């Protein structure tokens, strides 16, 4: 039996070594989320404007365009739950924080937890949905997190470099009705599947707004612009429901909503039907900056 165990170990050893090397590189890989978390850990006390939300905000709001020290904490597919939990975690050290931009998009209130990305929040931010165990991810980020295939694919690519949490993407592609239809269909399926999440998300959002207000931080709801090909395919019933709710919440807590959904921008500002590129982000961020400056003026 000892022979069996010894032979098995010898057989497994090369695989184990290769695996450990890959695991090391995966952990060392400077993902955007890792950079964002690093920024939060080191500079959270200097952040004055915090940007939260999904890819609409993470692509479309350039923090370097603001007069205040802004940081973009949005991530692709990031639901309200993680927006809020990450902020809660770092809030005690965010001593300069004045404004929080909360992205309110077509699907934000229905957004569920993208299970495929839970491990990233658990590994990088130490935040888990409903305190789910992160033991496995901590044990092997490559195997239980990214998966060997995706992990190796990722390692072969140069990581993006973020500035204040933001990565500006260049170019324009797939601006057509079919792309808009497909994108909206994806969100519609998500909304249909998660209608019951709306109540949960509303409660979560309102308690977050209250928390911010208690700390004299101004929450601002924001809806980022999307292209006509995207907007024209949206379910008008959901758009109206969202608007009614956002209006009521703004009234209830005396906060503002920057609704740019139908704001007209040239095609060259779009990365695709529902995301802004670097140029678009610059234009919109300056516009948002003007609004915040006006708020600053009225506060002073």
């Amino acid at each position, binding site marked *: *039996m000892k022979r069996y165990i010894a032979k098995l170990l010898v*057989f497994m050893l090369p*695989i184990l070594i290769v695996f450990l090397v890959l695991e090391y590189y995966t952990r060392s890989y400077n993902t955007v989320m890792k950079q964002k978390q690093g920024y939060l850990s080191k500079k959270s006390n200097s952040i004055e404007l915090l940007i939260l939300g999904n890819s609409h905000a993470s692509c479309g709001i350039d923090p370097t365009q603001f007069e205040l020290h802004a940081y973009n904490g949005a991530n692709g597919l990031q639901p309200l739950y993680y927006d809020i939990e990450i902020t809660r975690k770092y809030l005690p050290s965010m001593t300069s924080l004045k404004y929080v931009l909360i992205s309110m998009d077509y699907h934000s209130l229905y957004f569920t937890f993208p299970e495929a990305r839970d491990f990233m929040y658990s590994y990088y931010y130490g935040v888990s949905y409903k305190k789910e165990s992160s033991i496995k991810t901590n044990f092997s980020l490559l195997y239980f997190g990214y998966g*060997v295939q995706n992990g190796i694919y990722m390692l072969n690519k140069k990581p993006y470099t973020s500035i204040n949490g933001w990565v500006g993407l260049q170019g324009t592609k797939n601006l057509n009705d079919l792309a808009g239809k497909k994108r909206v269909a994806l969100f519609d399926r998500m909304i249909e599947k998660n209608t019951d999440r709306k109540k949960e998300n509303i409660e979560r959002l309102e308690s977050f707004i209250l928390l911010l207000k208690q700390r004299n931080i101004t929450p601002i709801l924001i809806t980022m612009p999307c292209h006509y090909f995207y907007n024209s395919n949206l379910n008008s019933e959901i758009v109206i429901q969202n608007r009614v709710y956002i209006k009521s919440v703004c009234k209830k807590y005396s906060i503002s909503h920057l609704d740019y959904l139908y704001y007209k921008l040239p095609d060259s500002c779009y990365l695709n039907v529902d995301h802004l590129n670097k140029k678009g982000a610059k234009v919109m961020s300056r516009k948002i900056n003007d609004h915040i400056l006006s708020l600053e003026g009225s506060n002073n």
Partner: protein
Amino acid sequence: MLFNSIDFAIFLPIVFILYWFITNRSLRLQNLLIVVASYVFYGWWDWRFLFLILISTIIDYSVGLGLKKEKKQTKRKVLLWTSVVVNIGFLGFFKYYNFFLDNFITAFSFFGMEIKASSLNIILPVGISFYTFQTLSYTIDVYKHKLEPTKDFVTFSAFVSFFPQLVAGPIERATNLLPQFYKKRTFDYSKAVDGTRQILWGLFKKVVIADNCGEFVNQIFGNSADLNGSTLVLGALFFAFQIYGDFSGYSDIAIGTARLFGFNLMRNFAFPYFSRDIAEFWRRWHISLSTWFRDYLYIPLGGSRGSLRVKVRNVFIIFIVSGFWHGAKWTFIAWGALNAIYFLPLLLKKSNRKNLDIVAEERVFPTFRELLSISVTFSLTVFAWIFFRAENIGHAISYISEILSSSLFEMPKFVGMKKALKLIILVIGVVLMEWTGREGQFAIQFIETKWKRPFRHVLYYAIVISIFWFGSRLQTFIYFQF
């Protein structure tokens, strides 16, 4: 606990070391360790359902002892029926309650009668269909004087709950497995190596073939209304390999794991897709279930003896019950009935036992006639799988209708065509490997004697790497739901 999980990868070496290094001096202690390990293995999923296994174990153990003491036939029958009713009762409640309730409500509403009854939110205990049948085989065999009942509760518990085959088989006969718990097990190096090889092949079939096929199966079956006939054919083919890879993979891991502990479990799959007729397919597919139904249902019903009406009746009963065993859905019943229709002509022509040997034995290639028979049988099987996988009968019919339309001659079109092409190449590789190894117990068993060590090791490394490559996205085993 899933075989393809890290939990099991940690659990197995711990149990293995405790078994061979700590408890190896006492048979009773080894059996006790198996019971504890098996309960941990099962409880990892949901500890509450351990009580079901325990109740089932206590009842069948007591019934076994009662049957030994009792001489009166009527009392023995009462004891037997106690076991049958309790075991089938649990199975019926957890698996079929909502099905029967829903169908009763539908049937009554058809006649204009409204029945107010609400279905229960019942969780199906993993593996209940497997261990129920295993314990029943014990009681029936003791009743029929084929087996001496055991007085040792620990041994009996180990037999019922033996973790390698607890949740998805092979459904062991007490006559085969129970006596192995009485004897002292000694570690056999060559058996352990062979077992490890079988585990490796099982994992490969599950993780690389079944799970990857499953991705396309879900996509194609989930959007079948929007896809053309040729894509749907591809979906059905992928499902054929998904279910085979999944279930035979599980069986290989179970058998291999049992061998590491010195046990020989019965073979569950014998390269079924190389069968030359449906009768042969059923001798090679899920052998432990087919033979269970043969021994405890088909033969007691009269088997293939008697009038034509009796023969037809028995064939339909066994296939429909087998379908229903898989789940409380009409699609499974239709799948069973379809297989009965396939099988019946062979039985009536008395050619159902024509192909008892291994196809193209000691030859590399099959004859044209063999190839044709294999292709026809495989096509019939794939056609039946459509019912097995479909959401409901309507879905299956619309799926088949689309296949039979002119869109069958269009090019397949779905998301991930390139990946599917790579997968098809992998599947062909597996089929060739299985063809080459069809004279063994599992596909890569032959390489021990026929391949030189460096080539063997290259293959093992390729398998391990591909398991890591594909295996990090954990998927459950299909057969757990049964």
